């Protein structure tokens, strides 16, 4: 029986972007994340998929502690990550690490690779021989040891991302958030990074929260997938099940939009649903189900009532009126 490593319960994160009114000032908020719940199991890769602006990165940044949630809760192995008003204890920071999307801005251009990798070692593993450890970390991500004297600008995009991965590994974490780790890279390097991540997961029994907008990538790496739309999760399922039998119209739309080359691949996809429109602004979220403006199977109830999560099959939940209360 696998245990839960990360539990997100009804997470909400609103950003105040301004005020309306002169006397009675009402804050204008962006509901970046609006009631998201999911669990990540020990040793699995949980995929979080969504268009840009769906709030998937906000979930990541809140988990790592860059934001405090407006409401809701995130707990790691049963321990609340936002207890009181204090900063997160070092022991917890050690366990949860993050790899950002753009390795160009996540590595300080004025510090060389040795200094970058030394920081987590100095803080979390004071006894170890740092130089040896840095060499070992670089080997782990398949970079030559003399890279430690280079500065980030001297490295290619893929190499930079490997350094970022090595830095995340340096604290010996058990849970790593991967915030679109490959979307800023060339396709040839993407495969290399993904293979590296899979190998490291096996080697160190890591759990990943893998955030991406690339559905076909999800198919290969994730064990379970959640689809986000406008700050809410609309469908959660096992990765295989998810591609075989998508329930939510939005998921069907996304899957049918995956570009394919051959006829056989085309046949595997659900029947073509033309994707219409763009994701609405999270400042003005549509009433009822936030997807109803773009939904091909829209019903009257959709624009009035926001649907709730329903378990349609074992381990497969959907938030849509089509699969209402049985």
């Amino acid at each position, binding site marked *: 029986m696998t245990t839960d490593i990360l539990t997100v319960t009804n997470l909400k994160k609103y950003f105040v972007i301004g005020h309306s009114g002169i006397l009675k000032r009402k804050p204008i908020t962006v509901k970046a994340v609006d009631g998201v719940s999911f669990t990540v199991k020990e040793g699995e890769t949980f995929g979080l998929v969504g268009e840009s602006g769906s709030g998937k990165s906000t979930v990541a940044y809140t988990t790592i*502690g*860059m934001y405090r949630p407006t409401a809701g809760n995130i707990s790691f192995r049963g321990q609340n990550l936002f207890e009181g008003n204090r900063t997160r204890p070092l022991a917890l920071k050690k366990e949860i690490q993050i790899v950002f999307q*753009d390795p160009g*801005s*996540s590595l300080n251009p*004025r510090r060389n690779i040795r200094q970058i990798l030394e*920081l*987590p070692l100095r803080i979390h593993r004071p006894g170890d021989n740092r130089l*040896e450890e840095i060499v070992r970390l670089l080997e782990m991500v398949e970079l030559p040891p003399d890279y430690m*004297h280079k500065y980030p600008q001297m490295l290619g995009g893929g190499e930079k991302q490997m350094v970022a991965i090595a830095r995340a590994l340096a604290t010996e974490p058990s849970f790593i958030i991967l915030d679109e780790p490959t979307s800023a890279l060339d396709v040839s390097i993407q495969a290399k990074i993904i293979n590296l991540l899979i190998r490291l997961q096996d080697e160190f029994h890591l759990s990943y929260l893998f955030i991406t907008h690339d559905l076909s990538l999800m198919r290969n790496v994730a064990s379970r997938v959640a689809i986000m739309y406008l700050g809410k999760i609309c469908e959660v399922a096992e990765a295989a099940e998810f591609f075989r039998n998508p329930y939510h119209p939005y998921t069907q739309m996304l899957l049918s939009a995956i570009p394919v080359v051959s006829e056989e691949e085309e046949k595997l996809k659900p029947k073509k649903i033309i994707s219409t429109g763009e994701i609405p602004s999270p400042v003005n979220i549509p009433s009822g189900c936030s997807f109803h403006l773009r939904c091909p199977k829209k019903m009257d109830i959709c624009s009035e009532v926001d649907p709730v999560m329903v378990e349609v099959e074992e381990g497969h939940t959907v938030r849509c009126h089509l699969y209402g209360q049985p």
Partner: protein
Amino acid sequence: MPSLTPESDWLQEEVNNVTAQANSLTLPKSKTMENIGRSWYKFSRNPMSIVGLCTVLLVVFLAVFAPLVAPYPEHAGAFVDFANASRPPCGRYLLGTDVVGRDILSRIFFGFRFSLTMGVVVLALVVPPGVTLGLIAGYNQGTWLDTIIMRLTDIFLAVPPLVLALAICSVLTPNLFNAMLAVSLMWWPWYTRLVYGLASTLRNEFFVSSAEAIGAGKAHIIFREILPNCISPIFTKMSLDMGWVILIGSALSFVGLGVQPPKPGLGTMVADGAKYLPDQWWISVFPALAIVVVVLGFNLLGDGLRDMFAAEEV
């Protein structure tokens, strides 16, 4: 319990291997020389920066070795030679003599000493606290710490600098030290402002978020992650400010609140000669030109540095 010996032996071997590797790592030659060469190329593409650099080097040389290079070093202090008073520029006194017969050229060389001391000391007093406050306020943007620090700088910036300096110098004894103190007091907010702008942008960079996620302390983030990215603009501003500080120092000397006679402050010399204009023009015109040369030199150098750093970013 199973014996751990074979495994730990293997582990030991592995550790030895890694250690040996780490030791045998031939550290690649640092690229410092190459980088300096590239920066110099960017700097030297603008001939005016070279002019500025040469001027500054020349002035520094003359100031440091004033007793050796000045034709009449003894003329720097209280010296009187009425026989040669108010001589126009000639072969013996290249820039003429003042009303008590002191060689203007020698006094200008010594005057450089006071001007440079003023600039260096003021910047040394101003830059560390100004930069530190700016970093703290910028990193804690939006908090009460930010508000306090930035409102304080606003208050200091609202006071006319020269008036504040005049007030301080006239309340305390007018001398070089108090002039430096006064100028320092009104100069730091500019650095706080500059660094605040940079730091408040840099704190949103993902490398800062990474350091926070790792658990780095505030001191590390402020001084090791953010500060190194602010160095170029700070250096540029310092070299430009050198000129401004010297100018203000000369202005204070001119009104008698800086360098005190018989010491040869450039401003003091201009003031002394002003009474004898236009007939004995050389007494004040040459020290005034000396001020122009120093200030211009530092400004050109600053522009060159700015171009060099700007090119580096690309």
